[in-house]
């Protein structure tokens, strides 16, 4: 009925936080250019602002596209009270319950997906290094084995 309002509200909060972080980075530049400890991993770490832009992108985009679905189904209208469920108190109660269950679930799932993305992005250089080390460790034995075979 109006479940998209919950992720939309989270999008507003995340956008404000992103803006504050961006302002802080402008005030103290150079903090974002830290390299990973391993010398082989030359990629700079992603800034918190970049990571937050993934979250805001998913939340704003998802809320916008869900809003279209609600307009399509006649649950959102372009005149007051905008949400058709607001016209009837019984419907309003159902709407609020749906926002508390489905809406919160949407916001939580998107946030969890974002946390997974952040974890993968943070550990990607280390994973690449581990893979490269393993390949380097196995390649001489492979060459020796192929040499023996010949």
């Amino acid at each position: 009925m109006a479940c998209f309002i919950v992720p939309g509200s989270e999008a507003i909060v995340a956008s404000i936080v992103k803006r504050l972080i961006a302002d802080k980075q402008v005030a103290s530049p150079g903090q974002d250019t830290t390299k990973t400890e391993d010398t082989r991993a030359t990629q700079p770490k992603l800034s918190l602002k970049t990571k937050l832009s993934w979250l805001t992108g998913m939340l704003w985009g998802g809320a916008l596209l869900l809003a279209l679905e609600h307009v399509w189904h006649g649950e959102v209208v372009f005149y007051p009270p905008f949400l058709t469920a607001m016209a009837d108190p019984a419907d309003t109660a159902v709407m609020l319950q749906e926002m508390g269950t489905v809406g919160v679930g949407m916001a939580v799932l998107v946030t969890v997906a974002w946390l997974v993305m952040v974890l993968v992005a943070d550990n990607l250089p280390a994973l690449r290094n581990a893979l490269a080390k393993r390949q380097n460790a196995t390649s001489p034995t492979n060459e020796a084995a192929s040499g023996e075979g010949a």
Partner: protein
Amino acid sequence: MTLIITAAAALVVTALRFFLPKQGARLHLGALALMYAGASLMWCVDGIASLVEGESFVELADASAMADDALLGAYVIGLGLLAWLVVLVFKRITTRRTAGEAH
């Protein structure tokens, strides 16, 4: 059906972003992919809520409802593209303004 169409669009755009890194970064395909992925995740929760209420996760039994959902899916893709174009124009203007200030 809307969920299937949006999830498919998210997969296609994500694949384009990774297989064409230069063009993908220039065209901000990541923003479009995130938009579709966010909506797909949200509709997944909607589908789970339908399952809990005893309905199906995705409506596939009724042909007219499926056609209606497919049309909605097409509109969702269109709105996503429109929003992406707005983001693209906004980023271009911001980049140009930043470059102008640097000069």
